[in-house]
């Protein structure tokens, strides 16, 4: 590899600092300057390093340097049984663990051609919309804090805490839930689960009004966001942008509606779009998305079907505890799944879901054994980062902060 003479010249470690060479202006003494923003910077939402070439306060070039959180999750997946990958998917995007669980489980269920009971599908939708609310609440609080509106953070985290309590109640964990299983759900939800969700979504619409009272009419907030970080629909598609930033650029595309999965076709909701393409439009689109998510939660609660939460596939789904104590086959299946996993027929699938940040896709390749041959994650933030240059070029440094907040990146999923 390294001794191959045809290998292209890759800049060495020292050269990383000079990803950009400052250029003198023609005929003048003025030079542009290179500024490192991050990896430790409060507005980069993790460990994102941006190398900025600036001319005074104006940004000329933005080069993202990522990989500080790379943990090789895709390689780790290849050493695990199929069912053991589920907890790894939580760690990719720690703000929407359930969305990752869902995308992975759907992909493997497609490989196995498993039919999932309706109740499990609806529960998945309900929890995914709660996850979206949770993620958007964190986005709103931190985005407003970046802009200088510190109070909103305290308000959004108050409601987020309620959502995390529900997650803990249903799965035993606040953040790394791992609640979905290949073939259904881990456990039947506790008895008062639906009541607690109902009381949460009863208060949420007026809480969202409260955030809007603080921000939407605020002239400082408006002026920092309006017209900043413009991204046209063509540029958004060329840069691979998905999710709310794509819809804020006027592209009417939502995987939940256009390529429905897990019973989303049975829910009625609107897909908010805006044609403005700036940071303000992304703020408006996300807030309206939160209101739609509340509606979807209400429909899921009203129409929650009865029945099993696990598919009828004893070779894949772990048996109930009670059955293991009374039935020999259940005990054998349990032993076999836990010790040697289950085989998945050879093939490949790509399953994409609409995560709070955009298209989260799982590409799984099986060679017919009990371990994945390859699991690849297509992450929304990773692609969206490529649009930074288009959004920030020619703008001020302070706008870079607003733009990063508006694309709502999570470094865990970028670096994996």
């Amino acid at each position, binding site marked *: 590899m390294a001794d191959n003479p045809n290998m292209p010249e890759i800049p060495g470690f020292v050269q990383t600092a000079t990803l950009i060479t400052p250029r003198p202006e023609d005929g003048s003494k003025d030079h542009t300057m290179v500024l490192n923003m991050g990896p430790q910077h409060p507005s980069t939402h993790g460990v994102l390093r941006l190398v900025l070439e600036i001319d005074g306060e104006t940004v000329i070039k933005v080069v993202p340097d990522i990989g500080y959180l790379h943990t090789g999750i895709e390689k780790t997946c290849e050493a695990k049984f199929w069912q053991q990958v589920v907890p790894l998917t939580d760690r990719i995007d720690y703000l929407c663990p359930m969305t990752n669980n869902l995308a992975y489980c759907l992909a493997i269920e497609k490989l196995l051609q498993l039919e999932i009971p309706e109740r499990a599908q609806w529960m998945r939708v309900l929890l995914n919309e709660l996850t979206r609310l949770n993620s958007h609440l964190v986005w709103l609080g931190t985005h407003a804090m970046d802009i200088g509106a510190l109070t909103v953070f305290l308000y959004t985290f108050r409601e987020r805490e309620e959502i995390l309590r529900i997650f803990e109640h249903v799965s035993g964990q606040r953040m790394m839930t791992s609640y979905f299983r290949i073939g259904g759900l881990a456990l039947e939800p506790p008895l008062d689960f639906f009541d607690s969700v109902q009381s949460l979504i009863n208060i949420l619409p007026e809480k969202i009004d409260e955030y809007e009272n603080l921000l939407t009419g605020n002239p400082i907030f408006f002026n920092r966001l309006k017209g900043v970080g413009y991204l046209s629909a063509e540029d958004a598609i060329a840069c691979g942008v998905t999710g709310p930033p794509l819809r804020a650029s006027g592209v009417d595309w939502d995987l939940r509606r256009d390529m429905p999965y897990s019973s989303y076709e049975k829910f009625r909701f609107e897909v908010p779009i805006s044609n403005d393409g700036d940071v303000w439009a992304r703020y408006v689109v996300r807030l309206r998305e939160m209101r739609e998510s509340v509606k979807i939660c209400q429909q899921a609660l009203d129409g929650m079907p009865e029945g099993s939460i696990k598919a009828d596939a004893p070779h894949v789904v772990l048996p109930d505890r009670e059955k293991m104590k009374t039935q020999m086959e259940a005990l054998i299946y349990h032993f076999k799944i836990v010790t040697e996993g289950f085989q998945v027929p050879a093939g490949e699938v*790509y399953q994409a879901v609409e995560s709070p940040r955009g298209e989260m896709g799982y590409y799984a390749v099986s060679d017919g054994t009990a371990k994945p041959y390859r699991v690849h994650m297509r992450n929304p933030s990773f692609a969206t980062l490529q649009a930074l240059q288009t959004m920030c070029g020619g703008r001020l440094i302070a706008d870079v902060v607003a733009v990063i907040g508006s694309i709502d990146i999570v470094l865990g999923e970028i670096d994996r």
Partner: protein
Amino acid sequence: MAEALLSKDAVFEGLAHNVAIQALRAAHPGAVVNAKFDRDELTLVIAPEQIRAACRTLQQAGYNFLEDVTCVDWYPTEPRFQVTYHILSHKLKERVRLHAMVGSIDPSIESITAVWPSANFYEREVWDLFGVRFHGHPSLRRIMLPEEWEGHPLRKDYPVEGYR
């Protein structure tokens, strides 16, 4: 779920009205080497030297969005690397997967950044983790690992334990 079609002829016959297949057969008669329709997903194996032209044709046929570029290492079979593209059409609400098989000696393929600029990061990731080079890429640097790293960790023959 529709029935699986596992050979090129079966796919061409069973999905004769598919926009992607029609466009590719009309523009590049020899480009589609093999095809598969399995679990409701269409996979077309493209001759690696024609990948950029095939992507351009698909883009003009309405497949406007590049979702993903990745790679699978089929070590020790040859050709070893399966570079995989997922392309989506917003209008048709359809997805097509392209495969391009690349051999293990000096693995390289044309870059499609000229068709979709978003391929930039994906191709850097494939270069970083698999060591497949992309001709015509504007800046093929490592993206996840440090620049001085040796080897490409997602290859199947990369050691997973012990000292390197």
